[in-house]
């Protein structure tokens, strides 16, 4: 598999996903200014789908694109997390000025933030499986389950499962109990 330059193999897929996130977040936010009706509904549906996909499912595209353009494992992981990192950073800006540094640090364990990391890890793992199977079908000696991609898959599954168990209530109340213990 040919290793393309860093722009193609790493920057391009990350920027595409980030661009989709930025553009369609704004389209979604502006959709409220449209007259209610068919056009508004279509704009809301399309922009919301692409916005959420870029935030939560980006690695399915980014990792796959990077993989087939010769990006290394760390490069694929880094590229996959550009859009999620941007979203998490943007989310943090809403909290800055309201909560202490310690509380902001603890926020990384919030089911939504940690969940975003977990789901994106899971997507990396799924993408890796897809890419590796494809490579193997072409006769390339690539292990289906190497340590890094297996770790991403298992960690992603565990975090996602924990976050969604009991409709998300169990993890959330554990999170809040620990918060209360630490900060109040």
């Amino acid at each position, binding site marked *: 598999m040919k290793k393309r330059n860093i722009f193609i193999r790493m920057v391009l897929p990350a920027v595409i996903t980030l661009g989709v996130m930025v553009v369609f977040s704004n389209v979604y936010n502006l959709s409220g200014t449209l007259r209610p009706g068919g056009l508004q509904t279509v704009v*809301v549906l399309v922009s919301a789908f692409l916005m959420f996909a870029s935030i939560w499912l980006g690695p399915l595209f980014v990792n796959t694109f990077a993989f087939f353009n010769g990006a290394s494992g760390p490069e694929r992981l880094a590229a996959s997390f550009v859009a999620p990192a941007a979203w998490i950073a943007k989310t943090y800006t809403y909290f800055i000025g309201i909560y202490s540094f310690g509380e902001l640090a603890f926020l990384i364990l919030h089911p939504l933030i940690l969940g975003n990391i977990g789901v994106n890890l899971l997507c990396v793992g799924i993408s890796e499986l897809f890419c590796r199977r494809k490579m193997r079908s072409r006769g390339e000696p690539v292990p289906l389950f190497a340590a890094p991609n297996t770790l991403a898959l298992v960690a992603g599954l565990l975090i996602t499962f924990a976050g969604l168990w009991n409709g998300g209530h169990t993890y959330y109340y554990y999170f809040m109990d620990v*918060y209360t213990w630490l900060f*109040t």
Partner: protein
Amino acid sequence: MTKARERYEKFFYTRREFLKTTGSAAVTAGIAGTGLNFLASPGAFAGNNVRAGVPPGTGTPGGVSQSAGRPNIIFILTDDHRWDHFSCMGHPFLETPNLDRIAEEGVMFENTFVTTSLCSPSRASFLTGQYAHRHGVVTNHTPWNNDNTTFMEYLKTVGYDTAFIGKWHMPGKNLPELRGLDRFITFTIEGGQGVYYDCPLIIDGVETPRPGKYITEDLTDFALEFVRRPRTNPFCLYLSHKAVHFGFRPPEHLRGTYKGIDLQLPPESNTFNTYTRNHMFVGAPIPMNALYRGYCETVLSVDEQTGRLIDALEAMNELDNTIIIYAGDNGHFWGERGLYDKRLAFEESIRIPFFVRYPGGISRPGRRVRDMALNIDLAPTLLDMLGIPLPDEMQGVSLAPAFRDPDASLRSSFLYEHFPVYPIPIPGMTAVRTDDYKYITYHDNVRPAELYDLRHDPGEKHSIANSPSAQGIRSELEAELERLKRETGYRYFTRG
């Protein structure tokens, strides 16, 4: 003369006679300001804002039969039930005949607000008659202080049988030591929020599984059991529902009632509002339409169960001898300005239903009062109605004058406060609302101040805080906000 009127006259005759016979002695003894000064107020319900500074058990009309002729009290508190989600408030499809009945046969305070739009602080304010910064439950994470005195404790001292049934939802390692309660039935599961189905209850200290039970009906069953007990004393029932809080799960027989109906949500609302603008941080990763449908169906259940309670009182011939008050602990956004949940100082969040039914004590039933009432007014209102001196620490006013006098004036402005609630990205804020304006400021100016002209912009969509023509009123409101903060002893809490 109706039976209710007879009871009413008997109750206030007793009080007037007491005043007549003790008034001169009180003056002679120079005890004004020690509690009996309230009793010197002329006429029923007239001494609404005189503070006595008397601890429970010492400020009651000593010498009179403590409970003789006094009405029963039922206070029904729901969660997140905003003011306009009743058929009597013109909701396009909700049908709430039993809740409407309370308003239509009583008095509706159609401009009632909470001083903090959040469950725990608001609940503590109903109980204590105090702002959050005074009772100390400033968020859903700050524990209740057992030194706080609830209105039920005062009622106990004048001979009431008392029960707290339902949602307590204030943090703390253990349940509170609520003085003056004969029954205390509550739940602590899920941080005190409870669950709609199979919610384990703590019945007078004993944790009890409730398999197969739907929470609103289960709590009402306990309420009915308490109400129906043979007794010689009047009773005070504090019935605090989990409904209609998030989860929004109706009972099985009401599920799907509004399936396929046009929900008529605001134009700026859409299905994804609950996922965006950080609304997922309030725990709502479910489409807006589905949540709202569940909310409305859950309201129906509250109406249905309230009907059971009213029917039981009627069957016992106690309905007209019972003061029934219905209120919500805060409002809720359903897509207005793209918002979801509550906490902010906009009307959808801070405005609540407040209906009082008491035929014997309310003139011209079915009346609507436009003056502003607050959640902190419940406790002083009840104490005032029963002739109990208002303690200094209560910060609300009695609404009782408005029961009798349509022209009674309550207040011209009030302070709204909110403290940060981890992990919700909404800053601390204070606001002042008058009849015509609302001015909102955010702690440390993390957001710009907002000013709304409620007469011309009731939807609060266009802040005029920076409009040159509004600078005069802005200055006035800033001064009023500072005055209210001083007067109420406001202080900021960085977290809860």
